[in-house]
């Protein structure tokens, strides 16, 4: 089976009330497709972290979820500030989130590490001033 089912979402920036809508929708669709529960859980957590990152740092962005019979690929693309030091950003607990965001309980520096932890494969393409695209694969 080589077909691919694609779900696309726009994530608005700076709106915490809507953050998580996209991952929640994907979760329900995957359940209706009978995808393994463990894989759904990983997709939901990894995607939610990515969604929150977009809201906090990038003023929103676009998410594409591509499902094939053996893989779920999540592509999070934004035109935000970019990540100057990816290695540092990947460190557990490292955060550049502003204080007002942290006071909401976000920005604990777990976003990217968690995304890496819950995906089988993660790639970050980023350019300062241009934007960031994170591609995650979760194998089925």
């Amino acid at each position, binding site marked *: 089976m080589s077909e691919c089912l694609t779900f696309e979402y726009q994530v608005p920036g700076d709106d915490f009330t809507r953050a998580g809508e996209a991952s929640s929708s994907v*979760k329900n669709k995957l359940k209706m497709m*009978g995808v393994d*529960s463990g894989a759904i859980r990983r997709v939901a957590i990894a995607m939610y972290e990515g969604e929150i990152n977009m809201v906090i740092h990038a003023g929103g962005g676009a998410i594409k979820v591509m499902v094939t019979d053996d893989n779920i690929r999540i592509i999070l693309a934004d035109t935000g500030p970019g990540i100057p030091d990816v290695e540092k950003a990947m460190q557990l607990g490292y955060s550049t989130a502003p204080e007002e965001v942290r006071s909401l309980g976000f920005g604990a520096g777990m976003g990217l590490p968690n995304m890496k932890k819950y995906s089988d494969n993660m790639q970050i393409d980023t350019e300062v001033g241009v934007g960031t695209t994170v591609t995650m694969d979760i194998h089925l």
Partner: protein
Amino acid sequence: MDKFIHSVKLDKDACTGCINCIKYCPTQAIRVHGGKASIKPQFCVDCGRCIRYCPHHAKIAESDSLDEMHDYKYTVALPAPSLYAQFNNLTNVDIVLNALLSMGFDDVFEVSAAAELVSEMTRSYIEEHRDEAPFISSACPTIVRIIRVRFPTLIPRLLPIRPPVEIAAQIARKLAMERTGLPSSDIGIFFISPCPSKVTYAKAPLGIEKSQIDKVVAIKDVYPILLSHMTQDESELRPLSTSGRIGIGWSNSGGEAAGLITDNYLAADGIMNVLRVLSDLEDEKFHGLLFVELNACNGGCVGGPLTVENPYVATAKTKRLHRYLPVSGTHMEACPDVDYLWEDYVEYEPVFRLGSNFRESFEMMGMVEDLTEQLPGLDCGSCGAPTCRALAEDIVRGEASRNDCIYEFIEYIQSLSGDLSYLTTEMEAAGHISPVDLQNLQHSIGKLALELRRKDV
């Protein structure tokens, strides 16, 4: 017993075919076809939300009749703690318990007393299984049912302890058999319930093979009878109540959690709030929680569809009633030989899955996505499904057709009438009707008639 039985039912005569209920159902279990609503049994979790929102009172909660007391030689009433919150200025639970005896029950056993045992058991269970926390309360049958169909990864988090009413039924049956010497079949255990969800539970419990509850009667049915049996003369009362603040507090949202004596809990009530919490729990958004109390009804059990009093007034009444009671009046050491734990684990029922395997579901999901894109996206409900997406799913499942959508239907009729007008213009120009033209004309008129008949307009 059918594993998808439910106790929220439709009164067909009262149903006008309006589409209020389909919009409020949290599991999208209701459709309106042919001018009447119908409930998909495998989707319904007995939350009772449609009962509250139906303006024609066509959604009803099934419960047993009090007349069934006569079918037993000895009957025991199990009052839910929410029953106490229905009365104004109630100062003493014994007034209610004595009234239950006076109206004809041979004995009473408080569900709130059993709730204190469940609280004690839960404290020790959580203490022994801290690594597996947070645990989700399994006392509300609607919560267990919704997790069973929607949240497979949360099934292992369900607290595997029987609900208070089950423990109460177990103890009450045993006591009755000891006291009377009668066989179990002659003893009728009657739960006086705030909700239809417990009616379903008694017939088809999850977590155990068979419930010890025989009949579930509605608080609203017992309430008016009970009123006339309630006395104000407290000196006449037999002291029957053994429950304290913890047990009686179970009727309110947060009451079960309060019995655990920990601050690391979350308590949510109202089915829509509960769904959000479950989704967040699934995504592991909470840290350090030991216990999650979820109640499908607003305010907790006092908000059940079979109660009489406003849930928030009832909450205030409960607080006033139990304020000066001891913390707990019933203890595990005084009640030996009780089976607290579940016998079975609850199994995931993927009722929302589109196809019978991944391949099929994958293809069907693709069709749902395409169809949803093509439908008008107004979620008007005229087709009888709650949203355009739900209609798309129904079409793909073979349970509805595109022309159920009024906008699609209008478009279809317009294209048919376009065909008709083209055909007649052609015939006019030709000056005669060829057999082929006639056939085409008849075919188009036939389709038009069929679609109009299907729409019943």
